[in-house]
């Protein structure tokens, strides 16, 4: 997981270098870029949380099909993280 985060940070640094003129001397990344990074990290966290919930939900559904609805809702619950993280984009942008 940490590899993925590092890779993301590196690419964001590259993007930031592309628009180097727009940056103040001590800034390595634009505000928008930072907001995008925040959303990305939130999505990563949500995905990781869904991994466990999803496999438990599939287990429960395999035993009892009537749990499909509950399982689905529980599985997508961490998705709220990403939606909340999107707020940051509007605050910054």
């Amino acid at each position, binding site marked *: 997981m940490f590899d993925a985060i590092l890779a993301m940070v590196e690419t964001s640094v590259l993007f930031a270098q592309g628009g180097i003129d727009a940056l103040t001397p001590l800034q390595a990344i634009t505000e928008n870029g930072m907001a995008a990074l925040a959303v990305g990290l939130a999505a990563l966290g949500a995905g990781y949380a869904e991994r466990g919930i999803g*496999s*438990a939900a*599939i*287990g*429960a559904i*395999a*035993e009892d099909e009537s749990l499909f609805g509950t399982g689905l809702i529980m599985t997508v619950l961490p998705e709220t993280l990403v939606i909340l993280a999107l707020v940051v984009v509007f605050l910054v942008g």
Partner: protein
Amino acid sequence: MSARKTEGSSNYEYVNARVRKRRSLLFDDEDYRKLLRMGPSEIARYMEETEYEEEINALGSRYGGVDLIEYALNRNLAKHFDDLLRWADGELYELIARYLRKFDAWNVKTVIRGLYSGADADTIESDLVYAGEFDRQFLDRLTEAGSIEEVVELLDRTRYGDPLADAYADFEETDVLVPLENAVDRSYYEGLLAETPTSSGRAMELYVEFLQAEIDFRNARNALRIARSGADLDPAEYFIEGGQLFRESELSQLSTNVDELSTFIRDSTYGDDLTEALDDLERTDSLIGFEHALDAALLEYSDHLSHVFPLSVCPVLAYVLAKEREVDNIRAIARGREAGLTEDQIESELVIT
């Protein structure tokens, strides 16, 4: 053959979700109360309406009465435990298999006993429980073996190979099965705690502790039986390594005297859990009650662990124990009814928590 190589990490979430559902299908007090009032054929009919339906229907034409119940129970147990091994990946598989090898030991012993008594392959096969790690083909080859020597050779590459080969010499001299059976049991129990798991953490510590408790209880049970029977046996010969309660020398000394032994257990770490059982043992002088109390204590402890550590091997283990108890209980009821015991007598044979 001894351990399937599994890749990836453990899938605790998936296995635990399924196990919890299956756990909820186990019989409760209410069911047992109903069963206690039934005869063997009624029990079979009752089981047909529960999750044993498939097995009862499949075996209904071949067996009847108590045999039908017994075979259906075994087959259902095998189905569920096989599922556990099928679902589990990575370390979780190893942890579950470690415990379920009990059934490998059981099967090996069944085959050896069958051959010793001259039963044919079909009879032996019907008594096997396909729940362990040995697959069906391998067990078929075992049952088709012509002699005990062949079985020992077939098991050569498994964990039972070396101890069995050593014991076979004894067997040839004395022509009694005890050395062979001891070798199988001993390699099972010693395999329980061998190669301590790689991942650490509180749940894993407790898992190890739990297995130690199992070994301790087994030692205590053996010692009590030897002490009670008054037979001139060396308890050290039946001692299982790995527990924390007894050392080999202590056990030989203690098993000569029931009172000393129960005081020793009372002062140990298990004292709190077993006080009632020990009081009971001293009062009624009955080993059965005490042994059931040991089972109940293990069951309760495993239940407790499964609530404290929901994402570990503990819930699976608790399920395995509970299922085993259920099968034992139903069997006890059916056999008890067949033998004409009263409800109270049968009830004292049950382990219900």
